[in-house]
C-alpha cells in the first residue's frame, strides 16, 4: 500500500492504494467520500467523472492515482453547497438544468474549466467546449443556457 497526498478542495488529503494505476475516480469516491464524480464509462468518453486537476477539467476515470499525487484537485463538492452554490452551480439551479442529473457533475466541472479559460464565450464556443460531455436525458438546451448565464450573458 502506497500513500498518495494531494490538495483536495482546499485541504491536504491523503489516500492509500494498493495499485498505483488505480483511477483517481475510485479513490475519490470510495476513500475520500467524494460522490460527485460519477462512473459513466471508464473510457473517457462521457465526462461524468470530471474533476479539476490544477484547475483543468480532467477525466478522473482515466487518471491513475499516482499521476494525481502532489496536484490540486477540486471536485464538485468543493465548489459550493446546495445552500451556497458557486456561480456555475447557481446557474444550473436557476435554469433547472438537470433531469436524472448523472451527467451534471461533468457538465458543471467542464463549464467551470471552460469559463476559467474564456469568461465570455459565445454559445457556439460553449457547444464546442462541452462537446465531450454526454447527456442522455436531453437536457442540453438548459445546460447551454446555464453556462451562458454563469458567464453573465443574458439568457
Amino acid at each position, binding site marked *: 500500500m502506497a500513500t498518495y497526498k494531494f490538495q483536495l478542495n482546499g485541504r491536504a488529503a491523503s489516500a492509500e*492504494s*494498493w*495499485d498505483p494505476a*488505480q*483511477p483517481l475516480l*475510485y479513490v475519490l*469516491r*470510495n476513500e475520500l467520500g*467524494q*460522490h*460527485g*464524480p*460519477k*462512473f*459513466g*464509462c*471508464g*473510457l473517457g*468518453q*462521457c465526462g*461524468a467523472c470530471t474533476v479539476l486537476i490544477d484547475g483543468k477539467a480532467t477525466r478522473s476515470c482515466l487518471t491513475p492515482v499516482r499521476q494525481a499525487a502532489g496536484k490540486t484537485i477540486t*471536485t*464538485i*463538492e468543493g*465548489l*459550493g*453547497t*446546495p445552500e451556497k*452554490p458557486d456561480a456555475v*452551480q447557481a446557474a*444550473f*439551479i436557476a435554469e*433547472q*438544468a*438537470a*433531469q*436524472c*442529473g*448523472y*451527467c*451534471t457533475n461533468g457538465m*458543471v466541472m467542464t463549464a467551470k474549466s471552460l469559463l476559467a479559460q474564456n469568461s465570455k464565450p459565445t454559445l457556439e464556443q*460553449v*457547444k*464546442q467546449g*462541452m*462537446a*465531450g*460531455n*454526454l*447527456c*442522455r*436525458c*436531453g*437536457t*442540453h*438546451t*438548459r*445546460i*447551454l443556457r446555464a453556462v451562458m448565464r454563469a458567464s453573465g450573458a443574458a439568457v
Partner: protein
Amino acid sequence: MTTSTFSPNFSRRDLLKTGGTVIVSFAFGVRGAAQTASGPDATLGKPTDTTEVDSFLVVHADGSVMVYTGKVDLGTGLRIAIRQMAAEELELPVERVSLVEGDTALTPDQGSTGGSTGLTQGGVQVRRAAATAREAFRKLTPADLASGKHFDLKVDPKAPLKDPKTYRVVGQPALRPDVPLKATGRNTYVQDFSTPGMLHGRVIHPPAVGAKLLSVDEATIRAIPDVRVVRIKNFLGVVAKDEWAAIRAARELKATWGEGRTLPGSDGLDGYVRKGAVDRDEAVINRGNSATAMAGAAKTLAASYYWPNQSHGSLGPSCAVADVRDGSLTVWSSAQAPHNLRANLSKIFGVPAAKVRVVYMDGAGCYGGNGNDDAAADAVLLSKASGAPVRLQWMRQDEHALDPKGPQQLLDLRAGLDAQGNIAAWEAEMWVPMNKPGTRPLLSVDAAGMAQDHGQGAGLMTQNADPPYTAPNVRVVAHHLKDTPLRPSNLRAPGKIANVFGVEAFTDELAAAAGVDPVAYRLRGLKDQRAIDVIQRTSEMFGWKPRPASAPRPVQGGVQVGYGFAYARYKQAENYVAMAMEVAVNRATGKVTVRRVACAHDCGLIVNPNALRNQVEGLIVQTLSRTLHEEVKFDRTRVTSVDWATYPILRFPDVPAIEVALISRPELPLYGAGEAAAVTVPGALANAIFDATGARVRTAPFTPDRVKAALVAD
C-alpha cells in the same frame, strides 16, 4: 443488522391548526432516513394498501405532511409534481409536503413508473387520498379528536377535488428539490449508497449470448487483494473489499466459455424480420372496408419504414446494492417498478414477499426497462454467496451490450386517395416481438440455472399506426413474431416512435401526391379543436410558409435547407403534439443538421410548467439522437455496440434551437408527458429532409451514409 429502528409508533396524535385547516397528526415512526437500513417489510407496520388514506399520507406533529408513493422520479420531475398535487388538495404550501418514493416497505404499490403514468395514475391516486383527508378534517368533531385514532379511512373515489380555478400550487413552476443537490454533487444515487460491511461486485458476462462456462483459472487474479470468485453454474462474478480490485479481477480473470446462441446479425435485419415466424396476427384496427376502398381509389401509394434496435443507453451503468441475511432480502435499486421487482425477486429466490424489501434510490436515467433489474439479481446472487451486502455495478460494455433493447420494428403502409387527395383507405402492417406472459428473464438467474419467468414485452407497440386524420377505411394488422434476436423491453414511448415516424412521413408522401401543403393537408383531416390548436400554434411559432408539393430546395454551398412538419395524438387518446423542424442537408457528406425545432404540446392540466418543459425539450433532443445516430449493431454472436464510440449519441454542437409552447387546459384531465413529444421527431425530420432534397429516408437512424444513399436513389 437490527430492524428495531422500524418499530411502529401509532400512538402520537395531536390536533393542530395550520393555515385554517385542522390536521390530525400521527406518525408511524418511519422517516426517509430509515430507508438506508435493511429490514423486511413486515416489521414496519405502515399500511401500504392503495385503498387506505394512511398508505399515502402521514401528517406530522408540526403539521407537515409526508406523502408516500410507489411511483418514482426517474429524473422527470415527478418528485415535485406529486407534492404539488397533494399540497393543492390539502391546502398547504408545497414546502410543507415531503415525499417518500418507491420503498416497498413504506409506499403503496401504484404500478411501474412507465407509460407516462407517474402523474396520471400515481399522482391522481395521491390527489384523491389528499382530497379524502381534507374532507375528513372538515368533518371532525371534538369526540373524534379525543378518540386517539389515525385516519382509518378508505380513499373516497368521489372525494370532491378542488376547482382548478382556485388552484394555487398546481400549475406553478415550483423548483425541483433534487436540482440543487444534483448541481452540487450532493444527491445520493444508488451508485453512491453504501452500507456497513459492503463488498463490491462485478459480473463477468460471456462473450456470446447464453454461452456455457467451461473453466475458470483463479490463478490469473492471485495478485489482486481480497477478491473472491463466485461461480454458480454459468454465472461468474467476483466480490472484493475494494471496488478497483473487483474491476481488475473481473477484467483479468481468465474464463473459458463455450459457444452461445447464434444471432442473425444486425445488417439486413429488416429482411430477417419480414420473414420471421409469426406467433399470431392481430387485427389492431379494422374500420370500414380498406380492401374495397383501396381497389376503388384514384391513386394508391405504399412505403416501408424501419426502426432499429436501440439501447436505453443509461449514462451510468446499472447498479444495485443487495443485503441477503436472516432469511430476508433488501435491495437498493433505481428500478422503475420497485414493487414488481420485489415480487420477482421473491419468486426467484424463494423468499416470502413480506421479507423482501426494495428501496428505490435515484439512478442514471433509465427511460424504461434497462439493466437495473438484472443488476439487482446480480447483487442478490453475490450477496447470498458472500454473506455480506454487495454493491454491484455493470461496466459500460455490460450496459450497452446487455441491457434489454427497444426492439426493431418494421412497418408497411399503403394508402388509397380519392380524387381530391383525401385518405379513402389506409392499411398498416407491422412486425413486432410477440408478448409472452410473465416477467422478462434476468441474465444472471438464467446463468445460475435458477427457475424464473421467461416473459416478453416491450410496451404497447401497436398503437398509433393508424392516421389521426379522417380515414373511413382503416386496417392495422400486427404480426407478432415468435423470435426477436435481442432481449426486448420497453424503451421510452415504445412502438409509438416508429409507428408515428411511418404514419407522419407517409402522410407527407400523401400530401405531396395530393399536391397540398403538408400543414393544410393535416388540418383538413382534423376536426378535434385541440389537434387544430397545436398545429396552428406550431405553424405560427415556426413561421411555416405554406407550399404545395415541393420541388427540392436550391443548393447553396453544397447544402439544402428544408422544413418538415408532424403531428400526433399520443396513443390516439392522450397528448396532442405538433412539431416543425428546419434542417440543412449536406449533399456531399450526407450529414443532416437540425437547425431549429418548434413544438406545441397539450397535455391537459399542467401540474408544473417548468418541469414539463424540461421533459418536452429533453424528449426532442433524445429522440433526435435516436433518429440521427442510434442503432444497436450485432454480429452472429454478440452485440458490437458496446460503448459511446460504437453507439454514438447526439452531442452539444448538434443541439438545435428549440421553442416549446405549452397549451394549458386546467379544466381538463392531465395526461402524462414523459413520452409524447418524442413521437413526432423522426417524422418531422424525415419530412424536412424530403423538403430540402426531394429524397425520402424511411430507415432510422438517418446516418450520413443512409442519407447519401437516399439522395442517389432519388
